[in-house]
């Protein structure tokens, strides 16, 4: 943890019409780490993702990415810096075929800059990436219309969309939700490989068991506040966390 954090959130707060969605949340993310974020329903997890990725502007606090304050930046600017996210609700570009879905990120300034215009056949690149995230090329899955794909593939497509951007940080908003056990087990190697490739992951999850297996550190949110942070073991044994999950009144 000696390295300077790649992503740092300081005292982030957001109100929605008087309701505290996020209150004074701070944490940091070291390069190459997997950070898990857990919390009961309505604890503000998705709001936190929206705040970091720039879709919602915070009322207070700042987000630093590689030392740069990105709080006021537009989402696409943030994505171009190398911080991207998945969405909890899967809405692919349903009228397009799966690989055409990747044409969008492949046209972003970030990709164009890094490939210096030598991307070659952009469709082939898209299909390669899809194969990487588990679309069977032989079965012609990449050519299928995105609207007709089952959920498992949609989650992969969503990850593929992020990977196409060659990001440094991916925030995964509940990638496991709605998937069967076998689908989850097949997804985990992919996430581990991403970490091997040096991509930092921040995972918002409900599936605690898988998350604890994957993450290096875990942050726990309840009622918009951070109530615990630490290694999976530390968090699992934290009394406040247990209370929050069991629904007892938290005293903060």
């Amino acid at each position, binding site marked *: 943890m000696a390295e300077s954090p790649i992503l740092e959130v300081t005292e982030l707060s957001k109100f929605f019409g008087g309701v505290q969605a996020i209150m004074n949340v701070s944490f940091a993310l070291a390069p190459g780490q997997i950070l898990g974020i857990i919390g009961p329903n309505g604890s503000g997890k998705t709001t936190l993702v929206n705040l970091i*990725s720039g*879709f919602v502007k915070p009322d207070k606090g700042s987000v630093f990415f590689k030392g740069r304050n990105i709080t006021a930046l*537009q*989402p*696409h*600017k943030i*994505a*171009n810096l190398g911080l*991207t*996210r*998945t*969405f909890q609700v899967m*809405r*692919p*570009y*349903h*009228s*397009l*075929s799966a690989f*055409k*879905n990747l*044409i*969008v*990120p492949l*046209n*972003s*300034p*970030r*990709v164009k800059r890094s490939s210096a215009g030598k991307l070659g056949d*952009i469709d082939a690149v898209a299909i390669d990436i899809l194969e990487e995230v588990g679309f069977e090329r032989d079965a*012609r899955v990449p*050519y*299928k*219309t995105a609207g007709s794909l089952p959920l498992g593939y949609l989650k992969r497509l*969503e990850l593929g*969309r*992020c990977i*196409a*951007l060659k990001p440094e940080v991916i925030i995964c908003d509940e990638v496991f939700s709605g998937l069967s056990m076998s689908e989850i087990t097949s997804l985990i190697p992919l996430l581990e490989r991403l970490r091997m490739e040096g991509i930092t992951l921040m995972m918002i999850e409900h599936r605690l068991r898988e998350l604890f297996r994957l993450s290096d550190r875990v942050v726990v949110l309840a009622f918009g506040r951070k109530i615990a942070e630490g290694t999976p073991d530390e968090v699992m044994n934290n009394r406040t966390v247990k209370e929050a999950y069991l629904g007892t009144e938290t005293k903060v």
Partner: protein
Amino acid sequence: MVAKTRRKKRLERSIKVRCEGLYALSSWSEIAYLMAPRVLLILGLLVIPFYVDMYWQRVLCSAGIYALLALSFDFLAAYVGLVCLGGALFIGIGGYIAGLLNHYFHLSPFVTIPIATIVGAAISTLVLIPCLRLRGIYFAIVSFMLPLFAVYIIIALNVFGGTEGISALDTFPSISLELYLILAAVLAALFAIRRLVNEDMGIILRGVKDNDQAVRASGISITAYKIRAVFMAALLGCFGGAYLGHLYGWLGISLFAMDFSILPIAATVMGGMGSLVGPVLGAFILTPMSEALRGFGQLRVVLYCLILIAFMVYKPEGIMNILQRKYHQFEKWEEV
């Protein structure tokens, strides 16, 4: 209950479709099969003028303008997700620029139309940029009001000829020129837009329509792309406006008339949303039909709207999509 023992089955025709938009062609007959509708359309548009009298040729000129507007409406609505009810804005801005250049600087229509097309599209885009943040029917309603706004301002300031407009602008030297100019423009625009929506840019725009948040998370500025899309749609409309101004040699506040916003939408609904060819066909059907109904006076608008509603309710996919299906698939009865 004989009917229940069989059902209609729909099958793709012999050409194997590997995936959306990619065909494996193996023979001339297959190429011909694919090319036939396109060639038919082009030839049809180019040949029809020979068989009608001059009045109907002029009607075709108007139909061409509506076709351009319908195309621009369909492009924005079906591929970018911007339902722009303000086609009259494009016509008005294009027409005014061309007309004013012609009136004050005596430039020939062949100079004013290109200038008006490009400058007009730029101005229309600038006007619409603040509205791009709006979504769904907010955008629709505000774009519906913008042409009215333009009229109010022209009347209030009493500029550009005020309520009387400016007439005696230069017109085109011959009917065949004006006719083929607009037909060529319609065909060019049609094929350009069809091509565009399958290029990377078109795919990104369709992405914006389906899920703009994901596009933003992919590092692409949706505003920048929407601006480009609006500019392109405005190009078509402004060309139509500039052309219209010179077609009748006049400019006036009625260039912002509601008909220019409504009729193209009707054409799109009738022709088939999202098919691009459909709206063009729709415009070439509806405009002459509207002319043929002229004898009915007010009843014409009523009939017109009834047809429109009937299409929306009973054939919402529109003519073109039905034709396309009939052409590419065949139906047969199947015993159950």
